[in-house]
């Protein structure tokens, strides 16, 4: 007997979609491959160099010698494999495609909504496009990346995704926000 396993998304049934494409939108990504790269001790600079120079991946800073790498095009296994090949002995690569959930918050009020739970100054001069860091959003640790003036990605532990979406809705209560899975 062979099995064909279907993956379920942690927010299936619990996302509480707010339909429409409103001024601000929270999109939950279903199929982003996510890996964590841990630089081998003493090889932080080499690993960073390879990740940046490569350009094929979007590496987001988590901490010294630690990055989240997101990919919309790779499957989890291929992402890990490709990273491992490129990084060689300079890093350990761990698949976290099921361990994390990626979301995108966009819209003119995005920074204002986030300020209802995030202490980091999100003024574009203080947290510029391209910056990423791990930080607290209310009671949850998230990796926040600014991908545009009015566009942020959040990456959160899978088991906290439901709580994060609930929190973001409350944070956006005074703003116009739609919530759904990303269409692609």
């Amino acid at each position, binding site marked *: 007997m062979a099995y064909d396993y279907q993956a379920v998304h942690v927010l299936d049934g619990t996302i509480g979609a707010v339909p429409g494409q409103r001024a601000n939108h929270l999109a939950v990504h279903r199929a982003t491959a996510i890996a964590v790269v841990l630089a081998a001790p003493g090889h932080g600079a080499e690993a960073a160099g390879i990740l940046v120079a490569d350009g094929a991946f979007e590496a987001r800073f988590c901490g010294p010698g630690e990055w989240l790498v997101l990919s919309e095009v790779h499957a989890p296994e291929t992402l890990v494999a490709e990273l491992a090949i490129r990084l060689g002995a300079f890093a350990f690569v761990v698949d976290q495609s099921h361990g994390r959930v990626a979301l995108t918050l966009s819209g003119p009020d995005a920074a204002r909504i986030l300020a209802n739970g995030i202490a980091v*100054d999100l003024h574009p001069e203080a947290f510029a496009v391209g910056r990423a860091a791990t930080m*607290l959003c209310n009671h949850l640790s998230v990796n926040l990346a600014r991908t545009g003036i009015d566009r942020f990605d959040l990456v959160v532990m899978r088991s906290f995704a439901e709580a994060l979406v609930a929190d973001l809705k409350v944070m956006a209560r005074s703003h116009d926000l739609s919530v759904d899975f990303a269409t692609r």
Partner: protein
Amino acid sequence: MASLISCPHCGVRPKEEFSIRGDATPVRPAPMASDEAWNDYVHVRANPRGRIREHWQHVAGCRRWLVVERDNFTHEVFSVTDAAAARGGAR
């Protein structure tokens, strides 16, 4: 301190992103050090009023352990360094 800590890796963050362990001055003795040295390490604290060094972890951020040097009366912070760097270790 007590409202914000400037993480050397992540920048200025609110206190609640960190958890604190305590005095960073005692150094773990060698396994064969005296009973007194071990008792001092685990139990005894100088606890001065004024300039102190404490271990804080940036748990909700980069998860690094930091040494925060600060005044425990004025709450002024003098420096925040990575604990491993403070011990001269690799990252």
